[in-house]
């Protein structure tokens, strides 16, 4: 089915296969239709509809003052968005790829994250920064970074990562509506993942900050998010053959972090593996493992383990499969959860 055909179906309202990219586009559209202060800006978001076509049709429907092709300068884009938000608009910025958000780092850290706090609440910045992120799509250098560690370490930012089509729509709508800045990390390799989805009556999803158990289980908990959710679900299916009944928790946001759901799961299962694509060292897994251990120490049969991208610059496309945490690597980690201690 061509992209155009799927889109047409999406617009009819019946639950039909839709991709995550389409659900994201629809979220932008619905937010813009509902709230005239929502503005989309970025490189190639207008006429082209974005390199991933997420913003396709927005400039046509809302005009290029609402969906604007900017000059090519990420700090300028985010900096301009700050000023727009100061004046009461609700900018949604697209960074073309993860690594191309780095030029905007100073604006993000020193202004976007801090403005509410430094003005004692007088001037919050309702900015959503959409970042297509992560690997697995055969992208060359600088097109596959996982940068969530930088953002989660920055107080003042929300960090949201959808893993399903429904969440892509629901979390993006909520992020745009939020009066706080959100770094919205879109897993590139799930852009073309599909689900039956009804654009005119999209399923309500849990709010940002709530983790969701995607698969209940009793043997151990896989804690994950974004691009690694499908890997974990597949691993959990495969694990049944070994007699493991794995629970899979989808964090959905790193900030806020849902300690309750995660800790409740690990207390139940007594074992946990954190799975993410970002490098391990200094990555989200350390924080998650530490938090879980602080809260569940006496329930743990084994240390919380981590399966993550290696501590290397993202490799060339032909090597990326060795780097990305896959089903086998997850299962190997589960096997190291000291099961013999049980008997």
């Amino acid at each position: 089915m061509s992209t155009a055909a799927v889109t047409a179906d999406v617009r009819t309202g019946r639950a039909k296969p839709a991709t995550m990219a389409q659900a994201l586009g629809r979220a932008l559209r619905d937010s813009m239709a509902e709230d005239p202060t929502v503005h989309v800006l970025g490189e190639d978001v207008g006429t082209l509809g974005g390199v991933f076509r997420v913003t396709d049709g927005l400039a046509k429907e809302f005009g290029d003052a609402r969906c604007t092709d900017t000059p090519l300068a990420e700090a300028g884009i985010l900096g301009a968005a700050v000023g727009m938000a100061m004046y009461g608009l609700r900018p949604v910025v697209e960074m073309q790829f993860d690594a191309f958000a780095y030029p905007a780092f100073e604006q993000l850290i020193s202004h976007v994250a801090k403005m509410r706090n430094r003005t004692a609440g007088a001037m919050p910045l309702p900015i959503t920064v959409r970042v297509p992120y992560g690997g697995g799509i055969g992208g060359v250098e600088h097109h596959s970074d996982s940068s969530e560690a930088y953002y989660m370490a920055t107080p003042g930012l929300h960090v949201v990562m959808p893993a399903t089509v429904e969440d892509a729509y629901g979390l993006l709508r909520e992020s745009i509506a939020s009066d706080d800045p959100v770094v919205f990390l879109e897993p590139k390799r799930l852009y073309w993942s599909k689900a039956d989805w009804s654009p005119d009556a999209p399923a309500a999803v849990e709010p940002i900050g709530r983790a969701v158990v995607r698969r209940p289980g009793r043997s151990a908990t896989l804690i994950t998010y974004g691009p690694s959710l499908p890997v974990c679900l597949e691993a959990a299916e495969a694990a049944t053959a070994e007699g493991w009944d794995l629970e899979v928790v989808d964090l959905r946001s790193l900030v806020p972090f849902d300690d309750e759901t995660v800790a409740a799961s690990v207390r139940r299962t007594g074992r946990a593996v954190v799975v993410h694509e970002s490098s391990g060292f200094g990555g989200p897994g350390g924080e998650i493992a530490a938090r879980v251990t602080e809260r569940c120490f006496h329930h743990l049969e084994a240390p919380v383990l981590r399966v993550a991208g290696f501590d290397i610059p993202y490799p060339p496309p032909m090597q990326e499969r060795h780097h990305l945490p896959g089903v086998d690597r997850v299962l190997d980690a589960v096997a190291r959860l000291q099961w013999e201690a049980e008997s």
Partner: protein
Amino acid sequence: MTVQELPGAAAYRPTPPPAWKPLTDPAPLLPDPEPFRVLGTDAADGADPELLLRLYAELVRGRRYNAQATALTKQGRLAVYPSSTGQEACEIAAALVLEDRDWLFPSYRDTLAAVARGLDPVEALTLLRGDRHTGYDPREHRIAPLCTPLATQLPHAVGLAHAARLKGDDVVALAMVGDGGTSEGDFHEALNFAAVWRAPVVFLVQNNGFAISVPLAKQTAAPSLAHKAVGYGMPGRLVDGNDAAAMHQVLSEAVARARSGEGPTLVEAVTYRMEAHTNADDATRYRGDSEVEAWRAHDPVRLLERELTGRGLLDEDTIGTVREAAERMAATLREQMNADPVLDPMDLFSHVYEEQTGQLREQAALLRGELDAEHGPHDESGAEGGR
């Protein structure tokens, strides 16, 4: 297309590059070779005496404000103060050319511009006293937070002005930056966005000769900073930054231009920082007295005073009245700054997000517990003197 697919040589007509059309005419964008001046020139004849007197009163007040703030650092009442002594004409003109609905984007040195715009001096100084990052509501005063990371406020001004224009509001943004700040990428990106969007922004560069210790010649090789404008397709203006009348005129014109939809202007004010970078700096390490003295002969307050006196618009009485008003302002400021600010440590957690996250609630409880242990649980607010 491979070579093979090229049209035959017969059919081929060489032409100039099809896309070539200059986007704008460069000539009107270039600054005049000499900084624009009014005081001491014929142009002063046409200047409005009332405006000149107003500027004079503000300059004197501004000078006094700078002196008082510097004194407060010595008394330990300000953590640090980057003085704008010598640059008052720029600061005052920037404040005065704006309408109430317009926005000012000051750098960390520009508390005086904010005060001249009407901001309470204490509120303007909380950042430098060290009790609050921003002591005022930016939206109430239409003054962005004093900006420390250099040049980063410039794209904000562009975005705000653009947003106002999109909304159909008649609002101009004036953004201030130093000569050093023009070297930052954010300066470039902001000016480019402004020109492409025709945003109603005025960029005011106070070229005070130094970025801390680094002189202009190590900062740029350009004929002037105003010459950068042509590279963005906006006009560049060069002004004597110590000539308050010239500053007021050039900035007014730039504001009017922005307001009428013609887009942004880059104004370079040639001025001088008479004091050290901040009270913590030692300017003798990088510049000699003779340079400072040369500029003292071109002092903005004196320049205007002389003009007014020469024209018989100012007498000793008026000077006295103006100075007295400045003294009263200084006395009030001194007094207000002598009080310790009352701070609530629990505020640390109040404005990070709209709603506190779980870990912030935990951390707030931890601090609450520590404060209770320290002060006893009866101290409800935990509020305490800041020092």
